[in-house]
């Protein structure tokens, strides 16, 4: 499958497995994505190798960041109709609660899309959406 075919397949079926298979880092942390109507929910099932605090234990803050950053990029890719990783410019992350050793979810919102730059908000939570573990904001470059 060409990259354009993978994008079309993902958009038509809502099955992200082929797209994610092409991104090694997604498999490295275990990122998954599901579509509900027009909404995308990103999932990070619990995984021993993602632990960064052995005492609590809790997920490594960098993994939570990487999960949210990759979620934002895939979300943007799906809304752009081009299967090319958008270039990230900057990423700002607030940790609100410890990300415990359990499944984590994320959702994204396109705050603003200009001609060259897009601003994406990401919220991550575990047990309850009303108690986010982290919020993030990313800028992406849409063209080179």
């Amino acid at each position, binding site marked *: 499958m060409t990259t354009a075919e993978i994008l079309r397949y993902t958009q038509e079926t809502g099955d992200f497995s082929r797209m994610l298979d*092409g*991104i*090694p*880092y997604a*498999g*490295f*942390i275990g990122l998954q994505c599901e579509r509900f109507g027009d909404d995308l929910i990103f999932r990070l099932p619990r995984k*021993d*190798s*993602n*632990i*960064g*605090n*052995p*005492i609590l234990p809790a*997920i*490594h*803050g*960098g*993994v939570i*960041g*990487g*999960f949210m*950053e*990759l979620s934002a990029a895939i979300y943007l890719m799906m809304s752009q109709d081009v299967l*090319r*990783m958008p*270039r*990230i*410019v*900057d*990423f*700002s*992350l*607030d*940790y609100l609660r*410890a990300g415990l050793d359990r499944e984590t979810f994320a959702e994204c919102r396109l705050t603003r899309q200009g001609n060259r730059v897009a601003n994406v908000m990401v919220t991550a939570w575990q047990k309850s959406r009303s108690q986010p573990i982290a919020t993030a904001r990313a800028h992406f470059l849409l063209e080179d």
Partner: protein
Amino acid sequence: MTDSVRKDRVTRFINTLQQARTLGLTVADADDQQLTLCLPYSQKIIGNPETGVIHGGAITTLMDTASGSVMICVLPDFELCPTLDLRVDYMRPAEPNKPVYARAEAYRITNNIIFTRCEAYQEKGKAIANCVGTFMRIGREATPKSYRDLITGDDA
């Protein structure tokens, strides 16, 4: 505390973090002002298969780990400090097949908060990313003594 003690303590600390071990992070340099960690290149952390460039998430983890471990080098006692926030600016994509280094410093330490700066670079000092962070001081007693002893070892 000598620089080799600092290196040993940070090495023991990052070896207790499964994600840092999985990424293969190692201590490149440490003194009383700064800490440098190294992230080796590997296929499994590629973010863009067309270019072989590693994903920013691996660099975020590298910089979060360096910034969160620099306290071991600058504070007299081991304290685990949770990250409050991070801001990462990506200067340019990391070149494939080469390690990425992250040098972190704590430029301001208060009773409650530690402010950090970190730069990720590759050989010849080419900057890949910059990161500023804040970390909360929850006190050494918040970390179990057995874990503190594991990090400080016999060299306390």
